[in-house]
């Protein structure tokens, strides 16, 4: 609703001027092209005036001479020949003009689109660049579909502003002014007819566009009701069947479908009225011109040829008038899209707020850069004494909500393997988010190799850590790209890494091996295979700290064995923090942290904790009782 409200903004308001200023940031590199476009547009408008003028010259020139000569009976063959050649000469002039006109049209279309598409390319790249640098929390608040629409449809609407919107609106206005000027110049008194009727046409077409837009909005709403109903009945098809509501649903659908039909008919009525009305109005202008023109010709104030020239100009003027209102809509849609896009660009990144010029410059610089911003070696240089990871009295809450974890303190020494266990909702995943600074702590601080994570850049921090998530996220690219994650990794190293985590066992038998393309989210792999790829990905990054969120999904026993082996290989020689579900991982850990309801309740080795007969003891027995290797998955569902 609020989005539609934007569309209603009057073009030319203060906010729009600000928007235009920001659009200029993108248009500036194309100033020359834009200037050429304007010149070409003017040439186009002027070239179109020549044809009717030539016609007037022929009719008032050779044709009139022939007529007069015929009346006087002085039409000699020699005179005829010279008149014929005069007509032919005018034909050549016309041909030349037509050629320029066509050439101008091709070049203009190409130039306008090239400029527009260039701007769009830049906007899209800048927007995406910026999106990737927004904090994770921003994405929690914005729906994926909404964001994707911004970077596709909205950029497209904005593109129309640059390709056809502004340029054609300029052309239309220019055409109207020039043609009106020409009409006045040809016959000021005759153009009075046009001056009376044309404003009516402009009024009618703007009014029509407004009504059509309102009707269109109503149809869109009723269509979305039709679709929502359809979608719900499809999703709840079993419920519909269970209650035998097939026919009743059809009635419900029928009501919405009927409403959509009625709303559509309103639009149909507007369109059916508009085109004939404009047609009648333009004919009224013409017939008025004919009658008044006859009077002027009788009184000798107008020549016959000039009358036709005038008539043809009149025909030219109707189109831009009819289109003007439509263009205005494109302009408004583009502006509304621009506002939403700039709304995203205004959101502060992980590194704080940046102005538009800076974002554009960064995007351009990134395209040029071949080396990564921070190498692993550079990131390591900052290290100070202290444990690999330290949580110092850390609490975290989303916004004003209740604490998800509260007053958590622990150290992970360099090279130590630490297991985190706890029931569902114990706050384990939050630890990872805070460590990687996806979110910032509400209170307390997190340190990495002696540095407060706030004193490190995101790249410096994240280069040191590799995360294996429980719900492995794979991109629809080939396996190699999913392991490399953009690192310049040699094929040799790629195979080595895969071998180390047992991923080669299923990749090698694939017909395309590492070049196998994965479907969206890797849905053509089993969950065990997806995990092994995530392991290879983490190993390829060669991190100092491994964060592993063990998957709870059940896999067959062979894959289970491979995963266990791979986990050991991955942790070899690294500091690791494992959100553990496997008994073997937990028992082999140097230290176990037991979380419950956002608090760190117990810490120690397996034997120490068992001896405590507390929470860990209970969890351990829960695990044994279930016998599924699923100590912390919570209730089986």
């Amino acid at each position, binding site marked *: 609703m609020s989005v539609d409200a934007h569309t209603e903004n009057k073009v030319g308001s203060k906010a729009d001027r600000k928007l235009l200023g920001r659009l200029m940031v993108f248009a500036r590199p194309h100033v020359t092209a834009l200037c050429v476009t304007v010149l070409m547009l003017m040439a186009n408008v002027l070239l179109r005036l020549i044809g009717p003028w030539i*016609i007037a010259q022929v*009719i008032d020139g050779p*044709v009139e001479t*022939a007529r007069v000569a015929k009346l006087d009976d002085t039409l000699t063959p020699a005179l*005829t020949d010279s008149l014929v050649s005069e*007509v*032919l000469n*005018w034909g050549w002039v016309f041909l030349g003009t*037509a050629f320029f*006109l*066509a050439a101008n*049209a*091709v070049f203009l*279309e190409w130039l306008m*689109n090239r400029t527009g598409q260039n701007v769009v*390319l830049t906007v*899209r790249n800048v927007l*995406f660049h910026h999106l990737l640098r927004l904090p994770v929390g921003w994405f929690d608040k914005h729906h*994926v579909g909404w964001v994707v629409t911004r970077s596709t449809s909205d950029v497209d609407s904005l593109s129309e502003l640059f390709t056809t919107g502004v340029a054609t609106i300029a052309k239309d206005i220019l055409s109207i002014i020039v043609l009106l000027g020409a009409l006045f110049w040809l016959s000021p008194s005759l153009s009075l007819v046009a001056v009376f009727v044309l404003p009516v046409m402009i009024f009618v077409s703007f009014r029509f566009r407004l009504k059509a837009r309102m009707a269109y909005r109503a149809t869109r709403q009723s269509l979305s009701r039709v679709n929502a109903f*359809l979608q719900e009945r*499809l*999703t709840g*098809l*079993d*419920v519909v*069947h*269970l*209650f*035998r*509501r097939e026919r*009743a649903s*059809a009635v419900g*659908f029928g009501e919405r479908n009927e409403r*959509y*039909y009625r709303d559509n008919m309103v639009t*149909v*009525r507007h369109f*059916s*009225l508009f085109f004939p009305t404009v*047609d*009648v109005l333009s004919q009224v202008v013409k*017939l008025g011109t004919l*009658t008044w*023109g*006859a009077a002027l010709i009788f009184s000798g104030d107008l020549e016959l040829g000039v009358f*036709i020239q005038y008539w043809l100009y009149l025909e030219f003027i109707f189109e831009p008038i009819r289109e003007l209102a439509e263009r205005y809509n494109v302009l408004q849609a583009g502006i509304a899209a621009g506002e939403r896009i700039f709304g995203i660009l205004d959101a502060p990144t992980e590194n704080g707020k940046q102005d538009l010029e800076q974002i554009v410059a960064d*995007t351009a610089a*990134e395209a040029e850069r071949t080396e*990564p911003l921070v190498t692993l070696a550079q990131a390591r240089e900052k290290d100070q004494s202290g444990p690999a990871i330290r949580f110092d009295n850390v609490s975290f809450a989303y916004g004003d909500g209740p604490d998800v974890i509260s007053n958590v303190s622990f150290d992970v020494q360099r090279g130590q393997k630490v297991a985190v266990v706890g029931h569902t909702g114990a706050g384990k995943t939050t630890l990872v988010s805070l460590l*990687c600074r996806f979110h910032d702590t509400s209170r307390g601080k997190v340190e990495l190799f002696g540095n407060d994570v706030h004193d490190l850049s*995101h*790249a410096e921090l*994240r280069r040191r850590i590799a*995360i294996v998530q429980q719900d492995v996220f794979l991109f*629809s690219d080939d396996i190699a790209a999913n392991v490399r994650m*953009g690192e310049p990794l040699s094929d040799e190293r790629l195979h080595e890494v895969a071998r180390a985590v047992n991923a080669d066992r299923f990749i090698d038998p694939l017909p395309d091996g590492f070049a196998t393309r994965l479907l969206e989210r890797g849905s053509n792999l089993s969950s065990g295979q997806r995990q092994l790829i995530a392991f290879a990905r983490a190993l390829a990054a060669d991190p100092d700290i491994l964060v592993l969120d063990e998957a709870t999904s059940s896999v067959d026993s062979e894959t289970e064995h491979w995963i266990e082996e791979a986990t050991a290989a991955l942790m070899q020689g690294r500091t690791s923090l494992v959100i553990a579900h496997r008994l073997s991982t937990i028992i082999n850990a140097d230290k176990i942290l037991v979380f*419950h309801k956002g608090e760190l309740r117990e810490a120690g080795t397996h034997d120490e904790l068992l001896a405590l007969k507390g929470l860990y003891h*209970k969890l351990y027995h*829960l695990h044994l009782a279930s016998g599924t290797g699923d100590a912390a998955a919570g209730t089986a*569902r």
Partner: protein
Amino acid sequence: MKVGAFSRSLSYFPRIRRRWMKGMLCVLPSSGLEIAVPLIVREVYGGIRRGDMSLGMVAAWSSLALLLVLIKGAAKFGMRWYITGASREFEQHFRQDLFAHLMTLSPRDVSHVRTGDIMSRSTADVEAVRLMLGPGVMYVSQAIVIVPGALIAMALIDPVLMLAMLVPFVGLATVIRLAAPPTQRWSQATQERLAEISTVAQENISGIRVVKAFAREAVSSGDFRKMGTSLFEANLRLATLRGLTAAAITAVKEFGVLVILVLGGLHIVDGNMQPEDMFFFLMVLNIALWPLIAIGWMLGMYHRGKAGAERLEELFALQPSVQEAAEPRTPETTRGALEVRDLTHAFDGAPVLQNVSFKVPAGATLGITGRTGCGKTTLVQLLARLIEPPPGTVFIDGVDVRDLPLDWLRKTIGVVPQDTFLFSETIHDNIAFAGEHVDREQVLAAARLAHIHDDIEGFPTGYEQELGERGVTLSGGQRQRTAIARTLAARPPVMVLDDCLSAVDSVTEQNILRQLRGALAERTAVIVSHRVSALSLADHVIVLDEGRVEEAGSHEDLLARGGLYAELHERQQIEAELDEL
């Protein structure tokens, strides 16, 4: 043009015939009069030129023309209004029938088609067919009237010039014919590349944590930039193509003017033609060319309409897997006795249930439990014939469910499904979903029984509260209890609760079940739950494991036996203790 793909669409013609015919009747005056006005202008201009027409006559002719213009305007309105209206009416009927067809299918019949896909077919494809059959046909019939009309008028005035005019006419048709395929190809290419871009954007945004965790921002931006550049190239090519087409159309038009100018000019000098004739040709050129351009659009509409009709036909071709028997049998009395006899069911070759047998006498309560994936929900779906069971395996009151009338079956067996689906309607309408015969009293009673009445009273508008996007969002437990009320309100003789209290804690579950005891006692009941504690109400319990009946007996017997049932029970008790810590 082949009719094949459109045969279903054309079968709607009788319903919209009257409107459509009215519209077609308007085509003749609206298009025919297009030529009349230029003819009058020619007459008047000739009179002015010769000086043998008085200003009064000019005014009279103009008034006549104005009258014709008004008639033409009215006819044009009628044409658009009736033909577009008829096409909209067609669309409405067609979509309605599509919906009715979809309602006969089960989710499993359409599992290979994404919901989004069905929706886009129901809107975009139906629209494509409509455009082809409505406006498409309208443009063509206009062209059929205008173009020959213009040619005849021109031939009567100057046959040679008319023949010369055929060159631009044919030229324009050729330009449009040639430009259409590559334009379509490149616009498809831009659509595909745009779709790729949106996939990349969507993936990177969904996987933003991975992107950030691996500091992959620059690489993702690089991928995105590459695709953007490729879209840029396709767009530019498309624009160039469009520019060339536009220029070619301009060139053809200008060529027409040139022919009129030179050939007409020469004929005038020769005395074979008059300036007013030249003027007439100039006016008619514009009028006759645009229907040809419209035919170009029509070609595009035809291709899209055909593709759309074919895709829709695919949907109509889907057959419901569960269909009422040709000669259904209704049991003499409805008692509600269930029996499952040696039921085996496989999905995609993998066995889900194997040799399951049990009997539930009318009025008894059966409990079913087992680990996730043991086949509980499949069993429920087979009982209600949401999935087709093999013949001779599932019986209600002694009749195979496959032979029962679907109306009787679904009225008799009331299932509360595991994933409770509520509609975006008021709470009252959701609970009274079974039909208009469910009155307010029954809704209230059902809600009280399901323990949801107090929650509903707490909403701003009570039972009139809308659910879903425009209304409140219920918690998982509230949704489940509303779903139970919905089934209770239907008063089925057999009631099946498929783990429908999983979202409330075990104590609440037991409370609700205890309260339901009265309602369940008067009917046959099947309680499916992963929680052992919920099954203490059952007369008899079966434990499923990997699709087989692992254990069977009363709650107490099974606990005493120390098998899977007892193991699940122990585990759930520890969980309960953990929750309390």
